[in-house]
């Protein structure tokens, strides 16, 4: 029998340390929903999503009750819409977004990801149409998330797309200014986007993925922080060991839930993504976890080193626990969704430049960063270009989810509510990079990508 301490430790993790299954995300291929007629295509999409994901929420709740563990979100990811929509010849893909929104509502999920395009080497006509449809699509839907892959280590960086996405992000902010530019919180650009990521806003089902699959995202910065509190002052080897053990246990919960969901839904299990994904709740912060290493405030010297070690130890613990670790798996450092990051950004100690350095070693990138509404499209493209370069040249996933909030300036905040939290508007270096961005073209793939 399992001993008492193990049982009490588990209970403590769920009740006081915010361990949760962050999301069960069902990936559904829409490859067979392409049609020359846009209405017909949308109809097929709606029917297919409802057919596959109709029981997703119910099954999530059953599992949650069986193990008495919180399963926060049930979500859906689909084939990038630019691929499915290409056949219809329309010059506006907003109807596809509206269809996804309706399907999400019918299934009771709270986000659906995949209003996406993969343009790391170039645009198809459909990719171009999809990207131009993003502002309208995000302004007229509630649950749809959009992502665009702009770069990869194997292909380099599509700088035409980087330039365009700066403009699209600005347009999305303007179209959704009534809600503090909420549309931008549902739009992310990637380098080396994983095709099986269950986390929003970047979830989509890549072209190499099966017909239907269950991916599970699990989180627990609080559990790791609690474990570190017990080894105060110990050397960093012991800290690494402690993080690995905590990550192992967390990942096992994810695998258990993923297997159970897969069995009950009759859908194969894909991956578990163990990501330390913070929420605005106190005790669920990655910044506070980094501070537990011995830093006065997240963002001070030593933060990047601590984050590098944390991210690596999380991956190692996760990989030992399951052979199906995928997605992003590491530490997320969104600003608005993390109580400690918000505090550090407000105190002025955590700046955009430091966050950029941190993204070299975390699992994603510049995430949920609010900047002044006056920031130009070219400057946003410049921020994206730098982040894409970090991902492309370091052979890792990076992303940018940036929110230029219309009418707001440095020192103000924008409130999104719920898990998206509160974002302090951060200062941006406004020296122009317009001539660089407007060159367009492609930054060639790095030399170390030629491995064939």
């Amino acid at each position, binding site marked *: 029998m399992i001993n008492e301490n193990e*049982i009490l430790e588990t209970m403590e993790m769920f009740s006081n340390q915010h361990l949760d299954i962050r999301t069960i995300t069902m990936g559904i291929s829409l490859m067979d929903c392409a049609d020359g007629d846009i209405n017909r295509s949308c109809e097929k999409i709606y029917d297919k999503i409802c057919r596959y994901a109709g029981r997703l929420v119910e099954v999530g709740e059953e599992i949650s009750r069986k193990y008495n*563990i919180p399963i926060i979100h049930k979500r859906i990811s689909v084939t990038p819409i630019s691929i499915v929509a290409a056949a219809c010849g329309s010059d506006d893909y907003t109807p596809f977004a509206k269809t996804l929104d309706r399907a999400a509502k019918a299934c009771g999920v709270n986000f659906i990801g995949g209003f996406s395009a993969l343009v790391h080497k170039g645009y198809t006509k459909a990719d171009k149409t999809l990207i131009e449809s993003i502002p309208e699509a995000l302004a007229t839907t509630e649950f749809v998330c959009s992502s665009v892959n702009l770069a990869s280590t194997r292909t380099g960086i599509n700088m035409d797309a980087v330039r365009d996405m700066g403009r699209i992000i600005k347009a999305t902010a303007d179209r959704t200014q009534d809600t503090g530019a909420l549309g931008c919180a549902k739009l992310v650009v990637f380098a080396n986007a994983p095709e099986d990521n269950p986390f929003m806003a970047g979830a989509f089902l890549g072209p190499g993925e099966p017909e239907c699959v269950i991916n599970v995202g699990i989180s627990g910065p609080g559990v790791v922080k609690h474990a570190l509190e017990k080894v105060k002052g110990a050397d960093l080897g012991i800290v690494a060991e402690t993080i690995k053990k905590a990550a192992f246990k967390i990942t*096992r*919960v994810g695998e258990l839930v993923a297997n159970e969901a897969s069995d009950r839904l009759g859908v194969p299990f894909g991956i578990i993504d163990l990501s330390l994904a913070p929420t605005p709740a106190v005790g669920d912060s990655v910044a506070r976890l980094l501070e537990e290493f011995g830093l006065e405030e997240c963002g001070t010297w030593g933060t990047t080193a601590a984050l590098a070690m944390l991210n690596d130890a999380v991956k190692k613990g996760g990989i030992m626990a399951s052979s199906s670790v995928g997605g992003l798996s590491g530490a997320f450092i969104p600003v608005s969704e993390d109580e400690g990051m918000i505090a550090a950004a407000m105190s002025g100690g955590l700046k955009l430049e430091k966050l950029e350095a941190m993204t070299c070693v975390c699992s994603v990138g510049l995430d949920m960063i609010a900047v002044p509404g006056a920031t130009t499209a070219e400057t946003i493209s410049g921020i994206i270009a730098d982040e894409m370069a970090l991902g492309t040249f370091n052979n890792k996933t990076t992303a940018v989810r940036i929110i230029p909030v219309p009418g707001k300036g440095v020192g103000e905040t924008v409130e999104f509510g719920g898990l998206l939290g509160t974002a302090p508007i951060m200062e941006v270096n406004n020296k122009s990079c317009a001539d660089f961005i407007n060159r367009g073209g492609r930054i060639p793939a790095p030399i170390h990508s030629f491995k064939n």
Partner: protein
Amino acid sequence: MKDDKNTAVITVLGQDRVGIIAGVANLLAEYDINIINISQTIMDDLFTMIMLVELRDIKIEESDLSERLKSIGDELGVKITIQHTGLFNAMHRI
């Protein structure tokens, strides 16, 4: 990782008082739920009882059982949770 045994762990935490074990055990007996093991201690003034129970052939839906335990916990002023053993095996055994 799958569990082959259909068992669950019931945990009762709270202020000690008369009738906690009786209350829980009566409820379980009502639905033909066999208790395999019980351990009970007082930790830092906190009444802590851990029960291992068998869920095979029981006369109640598992989700309803969880609700019934919660409400009896409210009556007794303690927190009662039931969790399938698979969870603990997954987390604590390689």
